[in-house]
């Protein structure tokens, strides 16, 4: 039994389309609607008009893009430019405030290392727990465990509780499980940065194999090496808007030039 939704039947069908997508995130706290203001609202409706209008931040502003089978896109931009918000929207966690978002294909995401990892359980047990969380078929879990154990090179440490692991070790484990079973769409946010060089190379190879099987990759990172290793295209975000979509070499050159100019000044 598979619990993965809306599997695309063929590679051609696999797609992500965004039309004029706007995402507003509410900020609660000041002026926010709480139980008191809801209860008092009928009495003070005339005087206190602002009650209930909580401030918002526009995380994504008029995003248009379409991705198809074979696209491997790197998201770049400053902190707070909207990279994570866009990834969460693509994953179906956030819904657009306005605009249209269409997706065909199964999605897997690696946004943080905390999800589902049980610190008291051993590495082996966590591979099993995570595999079930991601909805991998039960019959395949034994093979997956062997595969992940071989990939992450943690050896004896896999028998230890995960609370004794370093960040990098956790990443190896999580990354191994996320990429253990094919998915049409893979979304990754900024986590590969904590790994060492040898793992990056290994991850790179695995990701290449994985993306060969899966159709679309969207990855957010500040690391040029990661971006050029994993992606063909670079999508630059600023203040929730897409400001450029370029092949990856150009992007690296641009940044190089920009850095040189900066040095010259």
């Amino acid at each position, binding site marked *: 039994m598979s619990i993965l939704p809306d599997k695309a039947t063929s590679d051609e069908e696999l797609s992500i389309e965004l039309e004029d997508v706007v995402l507003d995130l509410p900020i609660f706290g000041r002026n926010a609607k709480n139980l008191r203001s809801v209860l008092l609202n009928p009495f003070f409706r005339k005087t206190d008009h602002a009650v209930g209008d909580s401030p918002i931040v526009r995380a994504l502003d008029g995003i248009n893009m379409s991705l198809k089978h074979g696209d491997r896109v790197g998201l770049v931009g400053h902190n707070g430019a909207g990279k994570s918000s866009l990834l969460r929207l693509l994953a179906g966690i956030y819904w657009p405030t306005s605009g249209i978002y269409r997706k065909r294909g199964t999605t897997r995401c690696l946004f943080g290392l905390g999800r589902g990892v049980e610190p008291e*359980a051993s590495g082996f047990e966590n591979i099993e727990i995570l595999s079930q969380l991601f909805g991998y078929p039960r019959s395949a879990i034994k093979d997956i465990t062997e595969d992940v154990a071989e990939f992450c090179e943690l050896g004896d440490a896999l028998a230890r509780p995960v609370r004794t692991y370093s960040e990098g070790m956790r990443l190896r484990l999580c990354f191994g499980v996320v990429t253990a079973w094919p998915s049409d769409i893979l979304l990754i946010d900024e986590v590969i940065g904590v790994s060492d060089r040898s793992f990056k190379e290994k991850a790179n190879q695995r990701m290449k194999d994985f993306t060969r099987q899966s159709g679309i990759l969207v990855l957010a990172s500040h690391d040029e090496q990661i971006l050029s290793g994993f992606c063909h295209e670079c999508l630059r975000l600023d203040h929730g808007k897409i400001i450029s979509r370029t092949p990856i070499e150009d992007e690296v050159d641009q940044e190089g030039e920009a850095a040189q100019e900066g040095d010259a000044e």
Partner: protein
Amino acid sequence: MESLIQSANQNLAMAFRRIPVAWMLAKKSIQFRYRRSIIGPFWITLSQAVYVLVLGIVFATVFKQKGAEMIPFVTCGALTLSFISSVLQESSNVLIEKGQAIRDGDQYFLTHVLETVFHGALIFAHHTVILIVVVVVCKVPMHWYDVPAAIGGLLLICVNLIGFGFLFSLLTPRYRDLGPLIASALRTLFFLTPIMWKPEFLGDKEYLVAYNPLHHWLNLVREPLIGGEYQVHSLWVTVVTCIVGWALAYVVFIFCHRKLPTWI
């Protein structure tokens, strides 16, 4: 509106398909409790045992009742109610606590509530030791069908808890005052519900307990285990609260499931 209902149903369908996952997670978290402690969750059972025994003895004395009658009554009532209130409290905060996991991709909200209810039920399963001891020691007259009836009642309570727990869990991320409000309401209900006293002690005000749904929930578990009479109307009240709870949760879910991840 149509697409809202559609996406709500999809989200729920995914959550239902993940019931085995929720069960697995609940089971694991119990297992991990044993890992660094010899008796694990039985510590809670132990403290509950002392608590219900003291309650039973004190109130049997205060109300001048026979201990052998009062202790099973108090034990069944107090254990079941503490199960109910702890599950409701935990599930009302579960989505806030799992905020990070939800934003990292676990956006099938009902799964988290199911995990909480399963976890509470497994802890309660440890407490059945107390029930067995009390029933045997106090020589409660039992029929063969009493135990299945109590288990059935417990399952019905669980279905209720999933409904109401889900409802509360959806509202608390938005209205943070609800969490403490629910907690204090449950504490008050502990005194308003016949646990330490019997409904007939109210005299001519006995009819008041009929308006307390918790009393009817408890009846389903308690009456079979204390050799009491089965209350058929309690069964109907429980079925009705079940439908009401699930219906409310479903309607609230339709309207808030898309916005919920932005609230946590």
